[in-house]
């Protein structure tokens, strides 16, 4: 029995709802933890299977990792016997006493013990410089740049290498090692590669054919070969190219190799930034009568470098990881000190290598992940400033 249109007005209808009923809460299975589980982990049969497989994998892997690093780990001991299963009669995880004992070697290499305060001062100076540049609201960041690119390199050379005239005895670079060398190599690469990279990028976009040709040859040559061959070139060919009395020492050769390599990569990063600047900016700068250096310094480079910051930091991350390759040409960087320490008979156990590599991995991970977080924060900040 249907109600015809006109019948609605008739009073026969017993009840008409005049107010909206309050909405019911959503089904329990769609909200809260359960709903989240359904939406994010168990949405389709395929996803259920995937979730179960990965969960099983994690349930197996995480306790194994914790067992190795903490539960079965050895926390104290004087030599390898503390970390040997045959001696201790229990499963053995990481061998931490090996790391404590060798920690100073990992940080300073063979730098003379009474002079290690110089390395500490260098680390502190570097930390101040880095913080000054990275903290965007720091006061006088222009002074910070001068400090980082001029004062710091000269100051650290005097401090680390020594300067007998002011009472700092010379420490030969063959004694340098560990984190010190890794940081020095990375800092040299960072400080040198940016200006050289900018010059090369400008050269590559120059209207002068000879300038362009040499820039392109350098950039493409270096980018086309592995870093290890550049390092070989620096370490075995460079001494041939200079008069015998000026033969550079080994660490300097590695620095030159790394700086050249990083500069070529930096040049391409900066070039991408230059290309992103609209023509109008160049034309506007020329129209107000700026010369080429003024145009670049005041108008183009500030904009181009700003948008390239994330990529510059990514290049630095690559550079930081690449410093480990100097191990192959016999420089005692951080990874090399681990390699040396792990085969020392005093601590030779089945777990020593893994412990050493775990420490190295954490070290590189902290630095590189920190840098990449900074790059990402920077990217977000730049994106926010472009939004209106």
């Amino acid at each position, binding site marked *: 029995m249907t109600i015809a249109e006109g019948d609605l007005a008739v009073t026969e209808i017993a009840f008409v709802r005049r107010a909206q009923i309050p909405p019911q809460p959503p089904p329990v299975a769609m909200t809260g933890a359960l709903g989240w589980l359904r*939406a*994010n*982990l168990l*949405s389709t049969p395929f*996803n259920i299977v*995937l*979730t179960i497989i*990965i*969960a099983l994998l*994690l349930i197996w892997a995480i306790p194994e990792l914790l067992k190795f690093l903490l539960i079965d780990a050895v926390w104290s001991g004087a030599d390898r016997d503390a970390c040997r299963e045959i001696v201790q009669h229990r499963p053995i995880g990481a061998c931490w006493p090996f790391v404590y004992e060798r920690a100073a070697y990992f940080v300073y290499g063979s730098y003379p013990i009474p002079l290690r305060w110089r390395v500490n001062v260098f680390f502190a100076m570097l930390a101040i410089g880095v913080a000054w540049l990275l903290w965007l609201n720091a006061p006088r960041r222009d002074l910070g740049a001068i400090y980082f690119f001029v004062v710091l390199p000269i100051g650290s050379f005097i401090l680390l290498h020594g300067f007998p005239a002011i009472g700092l005895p010379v420490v030969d670079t063959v004694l340098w090692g560990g984190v010190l060398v890794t940081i020095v190599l990375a800092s040299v690469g960072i400080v040198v590669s940016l200006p050289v990279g900018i010059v090369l990028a400008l050269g590559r976009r120059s*209207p*002068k*054919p*000879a*300038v362009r040709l*040499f820039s392109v040859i350098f950039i*493409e*040559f270096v*980018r*086309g*070969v*592995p*870093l*290890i*061959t550049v390092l*070989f*070139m620096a370490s*075995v*060919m460079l*001494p*041939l*190219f*200079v*008069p*015998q009395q000026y033969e550079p020492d080994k660490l300097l050769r590695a620095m030159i190799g790394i700086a050249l390599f990083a500069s070529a990569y930096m040049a391409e990063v900066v070039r991408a930034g230059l290309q992103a600047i609209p023509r109008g900016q160049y034309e506007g700068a020329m129209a107000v009568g700026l010369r080429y250096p003024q145009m670049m310094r005041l108008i183009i480079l500030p904009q181009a470098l700003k948008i390239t910051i994330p990529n510059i930091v990514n290049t630095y*991350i690559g550079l930081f*990881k*690449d410093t*480990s*390759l100097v*191990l*192959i040409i016999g420089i005692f960087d951080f*990874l090399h000190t681990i*390699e040396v320490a*792990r085969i020392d008979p005093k601590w030779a156990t*089945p777990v020593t*290598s*893994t412990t050493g*590599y775990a420490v*190295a*991995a954490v070290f*590189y*991970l902290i630095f*590189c*992940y920190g840098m*990449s977080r900074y790059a990402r924060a920077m990217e977000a900040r730049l994106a926010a400033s472009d939004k209106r």
Partner: protein
Amino acid sequence: MSTDLTTGASTARVAFYNDPKIRSIFYQVVLCVFIAFLVYGAASNAIENLRRAHIASGFGFWNTTAGFDISQTLIPYNADVSTYGRAFWVGLLNTLLVAGLGIFFATIIGFVIGISRLSKNWLVAKVASGYVETLRNIPLLLQLLFWYNAVLKALPIVRESYRFPGGIYLNNRGLILPEPVLQPDFDWVTGAFIIGVVASVSFHFWARRRQMRTGQRAPVFWVSAGLIVGLPAIVAALLGVPVLFDYPEAGRFNIIGGVGVQPEFLALLFGLSIYTGAFIAEVVRAGILAVSRGQTEAAYSLGLRPGPTLRLIVVPQAMRVIIPPLTNQYLNLTKNSSLAVAIGYPDLVQVFTGTVLNQTGQAVEVVAITMAVYLTISLATSLAMNLYNRRMALVER
């Protein structure tokens, strides 16, 4: 005033040292002279230093007997008779072998992880991004040393080898697999395979032309699979499988027979694939995200189902973004394979820049040859990439 400027009288009023053209030429000449001076200085020093050290120069060493052994050779090589030139080819082939296999595995890992990072499954996405963040931030050299020294060298000795079904052994000397020995009849199977490849390529072109003409689609994938895999399989079955396997046997001190894969090779392959896979994952993720949602929605509104949408709309557009950086990663992998020198896998750098350089002392020639090889690979790849980009670039009005 304005007429002066337009009639070209300006040249008369500007001193020649202010003329931009003359200045530009002057600067370039200065640069060229400076670089020529550097090169001349370096060359004359090098000649002087080499003379003093009594090191021969030139490429005469190429045909000299090498006299050292190489642990993995893809072409016949003998320490007593083979030359340095032969050692170079052995090293180059080893580099290409590990790079080729590395590219294959890194691509698979990269695509799986990259797609997983975009998965709606929270756990999968988190695990994938954990993988990428961790492995990208640890130096490759450290990863290689870890795989080699802490994992593969820590495997049990020969007598306590792990045994896997199918006659596979794993111990601290590497992986020992059954070696397939091809019987003479196998040529028929190879022939069938070649015919299958040719036929499936022709079928692909035929199907494309027919689709252009009539709009009908042909099952290209299944037909190709049938021709390339099925045809040789049928021929092999008809001939009674003309392959014998040489199964390794565990002896007292050694494993006899089979084909051994060295731990150095395994470590390098593992390290390169896993490390580059993390970078490829990021490339893939960026490529997929670069295809705007509107494309997917438009495809749905045309009535395409999710499968065809992905295959016909999203993937072709994502590939346009993915392929250039992907090639870059392949090049990086090839260049990174030179880290083999750290774990003793006999690649080009280890054999040539390592052993040959030490024996001959001819640093300039040896390093130059090694660099030339990598440079050739890089330049050839980027040339191919430029051609590809020109073909794939969006044609705008």
